[in-house]
C-alpha cells in the first residue's frame, strides 16, 4: 500500500533510465484494450521498435480474442496488455511466460513496484492503475444545497433530492449493462460491504448472505435513480449521458476521465465536473470499489527472439518518464516520474482509503460471469434478492464443476 502511495504522490528523482532501443530483429505484435492511455503507451513502445516488425490491435473485444489467439502456436500476438482480471485466464491456461531474465537484462527503468510476481516469477509489468469512483456536477449539487456524497447512502439521498427538485429525471448513472459491467458493479458494492466471494480460500461460493442482499438492494436503489435503460448502458453510454447533461452523480472508471473532460462537448458541463473519491457503503470504511492495474504480459508460444524484442519495446514505454510527463492527464501511471494531476484524484483517494484490488483468483471469472446474467431479474423486479443470489451460486457451481474447480 505504502509503495503505491510513494509512487503516486511523490516525484521520485532518479537516474534517467532509457530502455536500450537498439532492437535488431524479431517481431512485435500487441493486443490491447482501446482507450487513450493504452494508445499512448503503444505509440511510445513503437518509438523503440528499431528494425523489428511492429503490429498492434486495439480492440474493446480484447477479452474475447486473447485466449484463442495466444493458444495458437506460434501465437498471433507476442504481447497482451492485460489487467488483474484478464491475466487470470492466461495464467490458468499457461499462455504467458515469466520474464525475470528479461527484466534483469533490459528492465533498468522499471520500478520494483510495477512487477506482478506469482511465486517469485514476473508474469506482468504494470504501468497504470485504475478504479471506479464518483464524478459529480458541482453546479447541480450547489444549486440544491447538497454536499459532495461520501457514501452510497448519501448518493441515493442526493439523487432523490435532485429528482424531487425537478432538475433531472435520472440523476445517477453507472455502467449497469447486463453481463460483465453489471457484475463488476456487484463486485465493487459487495467488497464495500466487506463481503468475501469464496468460503475460506476455497472455490465454494459465499455470496448468498446478508451482505449479498444488502449489495443487491443498494444496486436496485441506484438503478431506480438511473435512466430506465440502464441494463443496456456500458461505460461509453453513461459517458454520453453525462456529456448531454442528464446526470449529476456517476460512478465511472478513472481511465475514462480523459475523453470525458476533453474539449469536445459542452464547456459548462466539463467545467462543473469534479472527480472525487469512491463512495463507501453500509457504514464500511473501505470504498465500494476495486483497484486495477493494467500491464503487459508476454505470450509463451512465441520465439525467444520475439519475446525479447517485445519486452524491450514495452519496457521502454513502461519506464518512459517522457511519456508520463506528456500524458499525465490520461491515466494514473505507475511509472517513475509521474506527477498526479486532478484527474488522478479517484485512484489516489481509493488507495488512501484502503480499497482492495480486484480478486486475482483462477475461478473469479466464472463467478463474474454468473453474476452478470443472474442478478438481472432481481433488478427488473421479477425475483427476490435471495432467489437471485441462490441462482448465482447455482450457476457458478455448475460452471465450476465443469471447469474442475469443485
Amino acid at each position: 500500500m505504502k509503495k503505491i502511495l510513494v509512487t503516486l504522490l511523490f516525484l521520485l528523482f532518479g537516474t534517467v533510465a532509457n530502455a536500450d532501443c537498439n532492437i535488431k530483429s524479431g517481431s512485435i505484435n500487441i493486443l490491447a484494450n482501446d482507450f487513450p492511455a493504452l494508445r499512448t503507451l503503444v505509440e511510445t513502445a513503437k518509438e523503440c521498435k528499431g528494425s523489428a516488425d511492429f503490429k498492434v490491435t486495439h480492440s474493446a473485444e480484447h477479452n474475447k480474442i486473447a485466449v484463442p489467439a495466444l493458444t495458437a502456436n506460434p501465437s498471433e500476438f507476442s504481447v497482451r496488455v492485460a489487467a488483474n482480471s484478464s491475466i487470470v485466464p492466461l495464467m490458468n491456461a499457461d499462455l504467458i511466460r515469466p520474464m525475470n531474465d528479461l527484466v534483469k537484462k533490459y528492465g533498468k527503468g522499471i520500478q520494483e513496484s510495477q512487477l506482478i510476481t506469482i511465486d517469485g516469477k514476473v508474469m506482468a509489468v504494470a504501468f497504470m492503475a485504475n478504479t471506479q469512483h464518483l464524478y459529480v456536477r458541482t453546479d447541480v449539487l450547489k444549486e440544491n444545497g447538497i454536499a459532495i456524497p461520501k457514501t452510497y447512502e448519501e448518493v441515493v439521498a442526493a439523487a432523490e433530492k435532485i429528482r424531487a427538485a425537478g432538475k433531472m429525471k435520472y440523476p445517477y448513472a453507472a455502467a449497469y449493462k447486463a453481463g460483465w459491467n453489471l457484475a463488476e458493479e456487484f463486485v465493487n458494492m459487495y467488497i464495500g460491504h466487506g463481503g468475501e466471494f469464496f468460503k475460506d480460500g476455497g472455490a465454494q461460493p459465499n455470496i448468498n448472505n446478508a451482505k449479498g442482499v444488502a449489495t443487491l438492494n443498494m444496486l436496485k436503489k441506484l438503478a431506480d435513480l438511473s435512466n430506465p435503460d440502464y441494463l443496456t448502458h456500458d461505460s461509453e453510454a453513461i459517458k454520453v449521458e453525462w456529456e448531454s447533461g442528464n446526470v449529476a452523480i456517476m460512478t465511472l472508471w478513472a481511465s475514462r476521465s480523459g475523453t470525458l473532460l476533453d474539449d469536445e462537448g459542452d464547456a459548462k458541463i466539463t467545467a462543473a465536473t469534479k472527480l472525487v473519491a469512491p463512495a463507501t457503503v453500509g457504514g464500511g470504511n473501505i470504498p465500494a470499489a476495486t483497484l486495477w492495474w493494467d500491464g503487459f504480459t508476454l505470450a509463451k508460444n512465441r520465439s525467444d527472439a520475439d519475446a525479447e524484442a517485445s519486452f524491450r519495446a514495452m519496457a521502454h514505454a513502461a519506464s518512459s518518464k517522457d511519456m508520463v510527463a506528456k500524458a499525465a492527464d490520461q491515466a494514473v501511471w505507475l511509472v517513475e516520474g509521474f506527477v498526479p494531476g486532478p484527474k488522478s484524484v479517484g485512484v489516489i483517494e481509493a488507495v488512501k482509503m484502503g480499497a482492495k484490488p480486484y480478486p486475482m483468483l483462477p475461478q473469479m471469472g466464472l463467478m463474474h460471469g454468473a453474476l452478470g446474467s443472474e442478478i438481472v431479474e432481481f433488478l427488473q423486479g421479477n425475483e427476490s434478492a435471495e432467489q437471485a443470489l441462490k441462482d448465482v451460486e447455482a450457476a457458478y457451481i455448475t460452471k465450476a464443476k465443469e471447469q474442475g474447480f469443485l
Partner: protein
Amino acid sequence: MPNRSFFWFFFPAGLAMILFIGLPIISTGIQSFYAQHDQILIEVKKCDPFGCKTSVVVDQEATSKIKEEKPLGKFNGFGTYIDRNHLASDQVSEFWSESKSLGEFIGKVGNLPFYKALLFTLTYCVIVTPCVLLLGFIIALSLNAISRKIRGPLIFGTILPMIVTPLVGSLVLFWMIDAEGIIGANLQILMDDPYLSVKSSKALTWITIIIYGVWHHSPFAFVVFYAALQTVPQEPLEASIIDGASRFQRVKHIVLPHIYPVVTFVALISLMDNFRVFEPIIGFSAEGSAQSLSWLIYDNLVNEEVILFGSAAATSIMTIVGISIILTPVLLRTWKEFRTNR
C-alpha cells in the same frame, strides 16, 4: 439424370459439406461428453502494485502432465447435458416434488437458464414464422397486382430489410426505442409514464425483437413467393374469372395450391433460421431480458473469461436436435407428397 452423373455432380458439394459441416458437428458432439480436468491449485505469494498476499493459482506443471495424457479432458458422459445450466434433471424433479401448483413449477423451471432460453427461442419461432409467411405472401400478391412501371423500385424497397446487415438493422431500431429515441420518448408521452423503458421491460423487449424478426425475414418469403407467382398459369385464372370467382376464391383455390411446395420450402427455411435467433439479441443488448439457445452458446464461448467448451458443445448439439424435432412434421409431409406424386 443417371445416378452416376448425379454422384459426380454432387461430389464436390458433398465433400465440402462433410469437411466443413459434418466433421465439426461430430467433433462438437465428442467435446460435449468431456469436462475439464480437476484443477490442481497451489498457494503462492502474489505481488502487484497494491501489495502482496498469499493466494491460489493453477499448478501448471501438474496440469500440463495430465493434459498431455488426456488432452480432451475428463470424460463426463451426459453430465454436462443434465447439469443445471442445461436440462437440469435434478432441479426439475426437485421442483416437481416441492411445487404446490403447476404454475409454481413452470415458474421455477422457467428460471433455469436453458429453459429460459428455450422458451424465448420457441416463442420467437412460433410467432415470427407464420407472420413472415403471411406478410411475405400478402406483399407478393399486392406487388404482383401493381402496374409494371413502378414495380421495380417497389420490389427494391421491399427487400431492403434483407439487404441491411442484421446488426445495423437492429441497432437502428435499438436507438429509436431508447428512452430518448423517437419511439421510446413518444411511448413515454403516450403512456404518461416518464420511467417507461422499452429496453428494460421484458415483455416490450420480446415484442421489439419479434417485430424486428418479422421485418427482417419477410422480404425473403416475399422474394420466393413473388417468383412462384410468376409461374401460376393464366388459363385457370381466366376460367375462374369467367365462372365468377372472387379474388379471394381465386387465391385460395388456384394460386395457393399451385405454390404450395414453395410455401413448405419457405416455412422450413424460416423455422430453421428463427430457431437460431441470435443477432437481434446482441444488436438490442437484450441479454438481460431475452436469451436464445444460440446466445447461450455464444455466452459460454466468449462472454466469460474462462471458455466453457463442454457447455457450448452440449448446447449446440441440443440446438441441432431441437431443429430436427421442429422440422420433422414438415419433412414428413414433404416426403409423403413426394411418394404420392410418384
